[in-house]
């Protein structure tokens, strides 16, 4: 197995994980064992694997939410020892706060980092972001009145407002219907490439992983480890039409066969 940087042959490394392992003390479950990966600047990577194989654990360690049991995590040449400002994270649920308008939700990271005045100043960028994801006109709407897809789009804006160097995405669109999901994925690609952001996506869907990524990491459970690194050399920008090409089908089939015939969509 080679580092992704060599495989993709582009950009300088942003994220480096060396020999990362995690054993939960509470139940002595080894959720991760000796994970090595390197994310290069501007690359899009996805990790795919069966339920419970340690994907969320990996993401939590990368984001500094929980410490690893072994190994080292380095982001932009600084070891990760806690939550960091250069990381943007998105979860399966939009997690917008119902007492704040959409706009107030989006500037929340700024408000927490630099205070209320800075948050007000950031509303200009927030409006631009809302327009980018097609939510113009919903600035003063409360999240209770947004649909699931709209809420997820708002939470993308919240993630982007601090202009993080890396985006960590834990199944961000898995609660959405397929049409919305495809659309959101294309949005995500557009946003990432326009900002040259480095993205790391956890997903259950092989087609989703393939259509978005430069590199797909296939994980196997018990203990969670990276079993294979698949480079996707489809041209960019990716379009939904590519999903019908034979090449796309071959890659999907290849990854599916690596997943040990476990149940997958």
């Amino acid at each position, binding site marked *: 197995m080679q580092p992704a940087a060599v495989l993709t042959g582009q950009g300088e490394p942003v994220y480096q994980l060396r020999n990362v392992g995690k054993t939960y003390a509470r139940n002595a479950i080894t959720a991760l064992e000796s994970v090595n990966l390197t994310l290069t600047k501007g690359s899009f990577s996805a990790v795919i694997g069966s339920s419970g194989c340690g994907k969320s654990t990996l993401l939590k360690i990368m984001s500094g939410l929980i410490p690893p049991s072994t190994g080292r995590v380095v982001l932009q040449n600084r070891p990760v020892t806690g939550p960091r400002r250069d990381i943007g994270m998105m979860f399966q649920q939009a997690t917008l706060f119902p007492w704040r308008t959409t706009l107030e939700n989006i500037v929340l990271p700024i408000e*927490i980092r630099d205070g209320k005045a800075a948050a007000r100043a950031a509303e200009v960028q927030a409006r631009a972001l809302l327009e980018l994801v097609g939510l113009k006109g919903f600035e003063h709407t409360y999240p209770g009145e947004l649909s699931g897809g709209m809420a997820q789009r708002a939470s993308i804006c919240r993630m982007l407002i601090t202009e993080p160097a890396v985006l960590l995405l834990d199944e961000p669109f898995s609660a959405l219907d397929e049409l919305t999901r495809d659309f959101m994925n294309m949005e995500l690609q557009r946003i990432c490439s326009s900002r040259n952001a480095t993205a790391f996506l956890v997903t259950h869907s092989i087609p989703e992983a393939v259509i978005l990524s430069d590199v797909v990491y296939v994980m196997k459970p018990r203990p969670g480890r990276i079993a294979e690194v698949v480079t996707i050399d489809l041209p960019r920008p990716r379009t939904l039409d590519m999903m019908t090409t034979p090449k796309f089908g071959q890659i999907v089939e290849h990854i599916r066969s690596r997943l040990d015939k476990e149940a997958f969509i």
Partner: protein
Amino acid sequence: MTHLEPASGTDADLGDTVWVEETSWLDKVPRAVQMIFVFAVFVLFWDLVTRFGLVSAIILPTPLETFLDLIFVGKNLLSGGYMLAALWITLKEVFYGFLLALAIGFTLGVIVGETAFGERAIMPYLVAIDTMPKVAFAPLFVAWLGFDIDSKVALAAFIATFPIIVGTAAGLHAADTNSRNLFKTMGATRWQTLVKMKLPMALPQIFTGLKIASVGVMAGAITGEFLGGGKGFGELIRTAASQLNTPRVFSLILYLSVVGLTLFALVSYAQRRIVFWQKDRVAGGVE
């Protein structure tokens, strides 16, 4: 390749198929009418019981006697008589008791709900005190604070504090993992997490505690007056009861319940205004 069904044509003359779900006729009656109906049945039953002497008049006055006394007491209250002075005293006890309970209950609730120390070391004692019959403390409060309103305020606050503690502490635990993780990844301080996330999320449960407290604070004030004298409404009830003036007792209790309902309604109103995003509100109820 588009294939649109024609809006008119062969199907059009079939007409609409709008239909109405069946509801029982009782559900269609307006709520006010339903409530008046229940009240009428109750009063009729009460009237029959007293009219045929099934219960002695000293134990249960007739509805008419009670109604006349209600008017008498109402007049006294409106004309600023001695009953209004008594009501004013009780209102003050309830008001101060509620404020005190709010301050103490909220503070302790945050300490217990937010800090591991509070949860481990303070909560067991609070639970222990909460299980005691709190009314039994009334003589102590009288001994410490005298026969004036202080002892009643103390008992009212004492009873009303615990639901607020429990509501606040439980509410602070209600924050979900995603929200917690989100605040962590944003690098929020503990104070920021508390003020900008946990407390707003706790508000529905805090208000549940406040509603229970608003009922308890009335009970506390009146019990305090029963056991510690003074010049409040409880004292009027006690005097009327000792003179076997049952209609008066009844009407005084009814006026007290108006006070209780008003307090409850005020808390509910505040909840609707402050927790405007909460949709699953049971109409006026305590959850």
